[in-house]
């Protein structure tokens, strides 16, 4: 095979058995790699009703056919498992260098099964795979674990690990790699913790076989040029990182503030990308073979490290009413150390603040901290308590839905399918509302980033307040994203590249035919198998919705005043476009068309 290493590494932690299996070429053609291929294999092997934190759940780390190749941004990997947060399929993506290194070790993916009887870590050095004792690592922060493993590991090894939050089965725990990179969402870190697996160290020295090296060189040159000449990927993201979005989203009046009670934050500029670059940025921190280099490395009087990203700044900043950038950077730092998802952590603190505001959280639960909107010390303090599951932080560590539900008011959780929504108020961005409601992993912006056409004007500007055309745009964005997530490339390339470009790269690398049409069809196929897994897991169409606040309470101020998400005006058309019945269930005809069961 070309583009692929052709090998799946399967490790059973219950039995200690390690094996290598051949990758099925037909499956690779139908499901590409990464998110698609791992989901297909996962859904075929695992009962959808499995308890996500039981040994019967499996955990897959998957690269794509472009991971570890000379393509721009080809260093990413995808974690696929059943989510303990949402009970849906989880596919959580991360950058850095670990994904490419796994490919160099000779594997397209790792499937981890069972549960070790004591803490362990896995060390992979090409063909040599060992399960090793991790007693000395358990309880350690991400930086401590990485420091220790780097000393013992083969030279140039890359390290993936969970922090204390994953060990303590926090349903919003992340898997961290290369210190600051996170497969953040959907609680994948808790699945790793439930298997007593602390870390995976990998070192590889093999090349990725390429079908047509000359053609790939040509296509890479063309795509890299597009990335460098595009205003977003060539200048905006390299200069300011993702945080550049703070001001533009706020200016549009769709920057959720105080747990979505407001939609504009008066002090947004204090936590903007411009402020970050001016006062706190010390260097850029790019991923493997990335010509964009959006990654930030920041320093305050107290901490320094990777990040923060836009979503993180919003979650701890605007959503908690906090305008203190050093506190936001510190909260981000502790999320990286404990291995917590920054979006779910910040938004859960915001939900706790509203629960406190409304009298649900009592004085005796405060543990010396405040839960007032705008309190900078609170976001740092509660992040640490969530990371260690201390006091009220124990309950908060399972996310905002379970926290609000425990007080009998789950609607205060600004989540979809129990996963917290990120940093865009969908009441003023109609297509994004549909994208959130129909996302296969719950509240998420990177399943269909309608912000791109509705706010940023890419590839063309859509009126953000109208419904017309939004179901079509949502489906195309979701399908293309599913394909990109399966290649091993970064989604940010799509600001500059289209379906044809991705098809050309995968074709040159693998030798398989990939037209733009086939690219979108593969994305559609992947989307449908995710949906079918969710349905089998009991997450039905009744959950294709948004919190009541966003459907019923109009925005009260600013440029998007008076708006709610008019989901009813889009959902039926969306289901119909997908070839699903009126209840949002894929029809037999659709399944036949895509060749899925």
């Amino acid at each position, binding site marked *: 095979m070309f583009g692929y290493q052709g090998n799946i590494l399967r490790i059973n932690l219950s039995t200690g058995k390690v094996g290598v299996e051949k990758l099925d070429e037909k499956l690779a053609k139908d499901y590409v790699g990464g998110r698609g291929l791992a989901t297909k294999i996962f859904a075929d092997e695992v009962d959808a009703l499995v308890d996500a934190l039981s040994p019967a759940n499996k955990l897959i780390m998957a690269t794509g056919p472009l991971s570890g190749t000379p393509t721009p941004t080809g260093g990413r990997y995808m974690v696929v498992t059943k989510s303990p947060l949402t009970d849906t399929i989880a596919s959580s993506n991360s950058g850095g260098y670990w994904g490419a290194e796994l490919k160099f070790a000779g594997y397209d993916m790792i499937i981890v099964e069972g549960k070790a009887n004591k803490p362990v870590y896995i060390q992979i050095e090409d063909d040599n795979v060992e399960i090793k004792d991790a007693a000395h690592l358990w309880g350690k922060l991400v930086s401590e674990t990485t420091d220790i493993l780097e000393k013992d590991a083969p030279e140039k090894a890359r390290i993936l690990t969970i922090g204390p939050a994953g060990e303590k089965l926090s349903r919003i725990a992340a898997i961290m790699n290369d210190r600051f990179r996170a497969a953040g969402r959907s609680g994948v870190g808790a699945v790793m913790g439930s298997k007593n697996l602390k870390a995976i160290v990998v070192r590889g020295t093999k090349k990725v076989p390429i079908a047509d090296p000359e053609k790939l060189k040509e296509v890479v040159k063309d795509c890299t040029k597009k990335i460098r000449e595009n*205003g977003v990927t060539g200048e905006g993201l390299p200069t300011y990182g993702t945080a550049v979005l703070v001001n533009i989203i706020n200016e*549009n009046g769709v920057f959720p503030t105080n747990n979505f009670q407001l939609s504009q934050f008066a002090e947004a500029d204090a936590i903007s990308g411009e402020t970050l670059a001016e006062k706190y940025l010390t260097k850029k921190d790019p991923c493997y073979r990335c010509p964009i280099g959006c990654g930030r490395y920041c320093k305050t009087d107290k901490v320094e490290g990777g990040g923060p990203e836009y979503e993180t700044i919003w979650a701890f900043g605007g959503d908690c009413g906090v305008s203190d950038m050093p506190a936001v950077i510190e909260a981000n730092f502790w999320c990286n150390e404990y291995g917590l998802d920054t979006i779910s952590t910040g938004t859960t603190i915001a939900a706790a603040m509203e629960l406190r505001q409304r009298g649900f959280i009592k004085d005796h639960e405060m543990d010396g901290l405040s839960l007032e909107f705008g309190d900078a010390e609170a976001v740092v303090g509660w992040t640490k308590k969530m990371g260690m599951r201390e006091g009220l932080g124990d309950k908060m560590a399972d996310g905002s839905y379970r926290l609000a539900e425990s007080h009998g008011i789950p609607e205060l959780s600004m989540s979809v399918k129990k996963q917290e929504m990120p940093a865009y108020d969908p009441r003023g961005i109609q297509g994004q509302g549909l994208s959130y409601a129909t996302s296969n992993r719950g509240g998420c912006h990177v399943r269909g980033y309608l912000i791109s056409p509705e706010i940023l004007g890419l590839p063309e500007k859509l009126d953000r307040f109208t419904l017309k055309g939004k179901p079509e745009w949502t489906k195309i964005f979701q399908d293309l994203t599913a394909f990109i997530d399966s290649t091993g490339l970064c989604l940010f390339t799509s600001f500059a590249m289209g379906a044809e470009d991705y098809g050309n790269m995968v074709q040159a690398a693998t030798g398989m035919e990939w037209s733009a049409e086939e690219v979108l069809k593969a994305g559609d196929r992947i989307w449908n198998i995710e949906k079918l897994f969710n349905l089998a897991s009991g997450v039905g169409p009744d959950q294709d919705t948004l919190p009541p606040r966003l459907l019923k309470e109009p925005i009260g101020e600013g440029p998007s005043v008076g708006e709610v998400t008019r989901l009813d005006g889009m959902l039926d058309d969306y289901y119909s476009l997908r070839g699903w019945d009126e209840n949002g269930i894929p029809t037999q005809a659709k399944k036949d068309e895509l060749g899925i069961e």
Partner: protein
Amino acid sequence: MDIKVRLFATLREGRSKELMLQLEETPSVEKVLTELEIDERDVAILLINGRDGAIDQILTEGDVVSLFPPVGGG
């Protein structure tokens, strides 16, 4: 009339981030760009009072014009 202009990202370079412009009656956004010596091609996103605006749109007293170069993220 008084128009408030808010500049972002690289458009802030060599300029302040927020300023008041006093312009003659019925100015367009184009006039604002001329006053600030901003090349229209450098403006990717143009908002008037937080809503999508156009370069030839006529402004009224108290309008807030927000100008962005190409930006993105997520």
